[in-house]
């Protein structure tokens, strides 16, 4: 079986994981890969957990990534990184946006938000990258571009040509927001160094 690259994007409804996965798949197709992307939405639209799965390679059959099989996890939020970390391969890369979005059971006092997430994860995963994507996006001009900052970080680890990423941004982001998002993407690359 040819090698398949599995990328899991996890976050909270409304954080822009879908757009991020579209940028990623655009670059992957340009690279000549067969791509499958799976995203189950329904009730998750109302602020629930959201997960998007992207698989790429010469021959991709199942659209779904199995636990322990992800090469990359890009977590848009800390708690979601915690929730999905067991999907990562032993030597996989976990990229975590340190933003916290507190779920309702925590808000109403029925559960607690673990405070040791980053430390716990650091000790357990192959490669660990943490960053304040929200801050970087705000500096680039819009907090909503956090998803693109994270794609910038991911791009440092994927073997796609830089052009493919730039084309993907141009194809997937409306013209008037493009400059801002390119800045956000670049700050993600810089952060990953």
């Amino acid at each position, binding site marked *: 079986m040819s090698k398949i690259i599995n990328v899991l994007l996890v976050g909270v409804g409304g954080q822009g994981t879908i757009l991020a996965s579209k940028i990623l798949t655009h670059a992957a197709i340009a690279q000549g890969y067969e791509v499958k992307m799976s995203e189950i939405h*329904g009730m998750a639209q109302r602020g*629930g957990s959201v997960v998007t799965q992207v698989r790429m390679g010469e021959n991709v*059959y199942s659209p779904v990534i199995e636990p*322990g099989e992800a090469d990359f996890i890009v977590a848009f939020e800390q708690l979601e990184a915690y929730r999905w*970390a067991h999907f990562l391969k032993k030597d996989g890369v976990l990229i975590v946006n340190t933003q916290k979005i507190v779920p*309702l059971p925590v808000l*109403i006092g029925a559960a607690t938000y*673990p405070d040791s997430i980053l430390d716990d994860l650091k000790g357990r995963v192959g490669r660990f990258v943490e960053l304040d994507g929200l801050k970087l996006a705000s500096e680039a001009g819009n907090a909503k571009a956090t998803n693109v900052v994270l794609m910038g970080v991911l791009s440092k680890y994927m073997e796609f040509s830089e052009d493919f990423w730039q084309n993907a941004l141009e194809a997937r982001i409306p013209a008037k927001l493009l400059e801002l998002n390119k800045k956000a993407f670049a700050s993600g690359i810089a952060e990953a160094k």
Partner: protein
Amino acid sequence: MKTLMTGNEAIARGVYEFGVSVAAAYPGTPSTEILENIAKYPEVYSQWSPNEKVAMEVGIGAAIAGARSIVAMKMVGVNVAADPLFTVAYTGIRAGLVLISADDPGMHSSQNEQDNRLYAAFAKIPLLEPSNSQEAKDMVGLALEISETFDTPVMIRITTRIAHSQSLVELNDPIERVVKTYERNPRKYVMLPGNGRARRLVVEERMHKLADYTETVAVNNMELQDQSIGIITSGISYQYVKEALPTASILKLGLTNPLPSGLIKEFAAKVDRLYVVEELEPYIEKEVRILGINVIGKELFPPYGELSVRMVSEKISGQPGITVAPAFDSPIRPPVMCPGCPHRGIFYTLKQLKLVVSGDIGCYTLGAMAPLEAMDTTICMGASISAGLGMIKAHPEMADKMVAVIGDSTFLHSGITGLMDVVYNGGNLTTIILDNSITAMTGHQENPSTGKTLMGQPAPQVDFVSLCKALGVKRITEVDPFDLKTVKEIIKTEVAVPEPSVIIARRPCALIIKNTEKPLQVVDCNGCKACLKLGCPAISFDEENKTAQVDQALCNGCGLCINVCKFNALRKAGDGNV
């Protein structure tokens, strides 16, 4: 050109490429995006119908008149549409008619899990099962061809993983869109018993012809490799098998009603050990057993939930793989009503009043979850009012302790008949119509009360007050769900009166209004936590300082929480001391 498309987008593309003229549906996850994407091709007339039965009937009418037609729904929708479906199998059509059933193994967003392949067998219509987006598109063409060749409606059954996952699709130019002339033929289309009996025989004959066809059709084919293991499979399960067992021989079935018994026998004879890998019911497995062939299926795979690559490989190799369990304990993140959601005020009041609440399907079903927890039952679309009637018929003393709640779209879907029943049978039930001016849960679709069609045309709006009046309800009140004091008074009054009543709680969904309100500030909070009972995701409690806090990014300034704070601690910027 190849493009990445979800199964739903690919079906819409097929509808465009293969000359369909009429499309109808009621939104329902995972099928919703089929019609949303068809609406992007103005060449195809597309519409939301108030429910799936109506959508099916629109499709049937168009197909009998001579236009290629498609109808889409989630699996539970087929229950609603089953009545016309079973009879159109008798009448047949003039131009192609395709029904898409989007099933949801694993219940990602459904109230039950049902395998609608059984419907195709039950209704005696051909059934196609695509395994990726390309096949989903191609099978629209094949389904139309089968429909016209055999004069029958055809079902395409997809599952959530097909509907919502993307794979590459080759785009082609559309064929010419032709609508055939209408031909009057009452013996074929008027299903009086005499005509029906004649058509019954036609249905049997058609199934015999289809039985020959299914043996040779290209979507049923053998992939012979290592013959020690043979697997019969269809739909998404095929993809799991291909990845889990790359060297196994496979009989891949695309046309699965009727099943190709000849091909199955031939395949079974070629392999040493035969398996059926399918999600949910042992649909193929049973047919294989009827042929007297020994096969392994549901003794390995569960009749519920989704399969996976890992499960297929473990079960067939007989060797448990490494299980990877979650390493950490994370609090769940359930979906919640949005900040500023118009439903919140109603459920807050219902909980305060400790009423029994007969609920329905929509965003407001989230009112069943903590902290609101104000819903006792949810059965299916439209059941709130009729089930509420049943409850008070069983326990007349419950009538002044209960309400039925239902959204605008759901009321129009199938709540109307329930309300009619309440009036007719003297049920003194109070119904609250939560009118948020949109079909919100499925992603904001228009409905007959919103003033717009799927194709973006302006439309007349159903007037709920006149409608309820026409059904015979005498007590109808309208209220702003955020006016908590009035809401409470009205609900108290209406549940107490011994006659049917309707309360229309009206405020648009927070996601469809252009909101310019400023987020709230917290000043001099006393720490009583009363505001937390609203379950607004923007309000949390700062345990260190013992004060409530409002997340400035999430709060949409709806002002509901101002009403529940006795200490005037929640204020709009610019109000009072802020």
